[in-house]
């Protein structure tokens, strides 16, 4: 292994080890690459050089808690994510029902939603819809506890390509003959 005297060969070995390793490599790990002992200070210097050599390239050499690794520069992350898109979850039935109630019965309080559904509401359901910017709080009701009033947003209308709520499927006519309406 006399060619190891060649400092650039050591640097190449460091580079190839870091590019092929799934996990960060510590200085101890990197020392294991060589049968002869390479000082940690030498390794640090070479890693520094490597970092500089890559500074205008696609990957950057970074130091994290457990050691060094090459990581794709942030600007590429959005492209790389397309290769393995995260699974899109479905909303739970509870969330869909809350959305339907807010859409058709707005403005409504949480208590009213619970009353209509007949079950206590997981606060998550409302939070998910607020995060999506489909519903928001438009005031408080003047009853004990001053509960928030929820309504759908403009963003909700946009997402569903509606000009106004009156374009929602007409449930009233759908149910006209079915429900005795006593208001």
């Amino acid at each position, binding site marked *: 292994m006399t060619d190891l005297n060649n400092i650039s060969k050591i640097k190449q070995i460091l580079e190839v080890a870091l*590019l092929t390793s799934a996990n960060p490599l510590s200085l101890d790990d990197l020392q294991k690459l060589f049968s002869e002992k390479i000082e940690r200070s030498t390794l640090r210097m070479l890693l520094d050089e490597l970092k500089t050599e890559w500074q205008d390239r696609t990957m950057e050499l970074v130091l994290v808690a457990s050691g060094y690794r090459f*990581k794709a520069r942030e600007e590429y992350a959005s492209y790389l994510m397309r290769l393995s898109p995260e699974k899109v979850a479905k909303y739970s039935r509870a969330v869909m029902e809350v959305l339907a*109630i807010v859409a058709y*019965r707005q403005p409504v309080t949480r208590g009213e939603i619970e009353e*209509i559904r*007949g079950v206590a509401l997981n606060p998550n359901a409302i939070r998910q819809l607020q995060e999506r910017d489909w519903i928001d709080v438009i*005031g408080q009701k003047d009853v004990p506890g001053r509960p928030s009033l929820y309504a759908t947003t403009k963003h909700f209308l946009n997402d569903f390509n509606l000009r106004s709520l009156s374009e*929602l499927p007409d449930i009233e006519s759908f149910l006209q003959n079915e*429900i005795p309406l006593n208001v």
Partner: protein
Amino acid sequence: MNQEVQTATIGKIHGENIEVLPQDLYIPPDALEIYLEAFEGPLDLLLYLIRKHNLDILDIPMADLTIQYMDYVEKMKEIKLELAADYLLMSAVLIEIKSRMLLPKKTAEVDTEQDPRAELVRRLMEYELIKIASEKLTQMPQVGVDLFVANAYFEKITEITYPDVSIDEIFAAWKNILNRAKHFEAHKVARNELSVREHMTMILRKLQEEEFVEFSSLFDVAEDRIQKLVVCFLAILELARERLIKITQQESFSPIYIKLQIN
């Protein structure tokens, strides 16, 4: 039987007189076990014998080979090596081939097609090919052993990917609620024009921004169609009924103001 075989055929290999078995056939007993375990089966052992003694695979001296093979098998039995049935089966095959070769031939010419060894030779050659292939594969760099592939890191973007929802799904959820409500709490689901509810929301939103909203500013009598005026008026009444807004007027015929019940 060994005796007979030796006198019958050991004399000649490719026309050369061979008086005794080569000594190097015999492996020191302590090494024998390791050797025997190293064989992958009877074909492997036969190939070893053929190659070790430079026998011609296409013109195998059956007697020699059979003797040598039986010798190993005997040794295996002696050291109580668990002897695979495959080894014993091969003994029978070898002896059968040898016997058939001892039978007088119908014609002087050797018909290779009918050479009793043909099938054995075919199998030995096929197995030898596979041995070569296996060695070559073993020597090839393999991912996970001595072939290394790029596997650098990239930071996953924790981009929130929202579920798709269609308007039909909202509709279905609403129908479901109403169907349930029909059974026990129908009266809770009050009938209201959706546009009234929408106007209730619009008025409440407006009141988030301004403390007081003048009643007449909520609609344009000149521009809006009559339906809109009615809907807006109904919305205000409904909001007041639900105690969401206060309607105030300083004196008769002065402007009517709407403010939130609480703020």
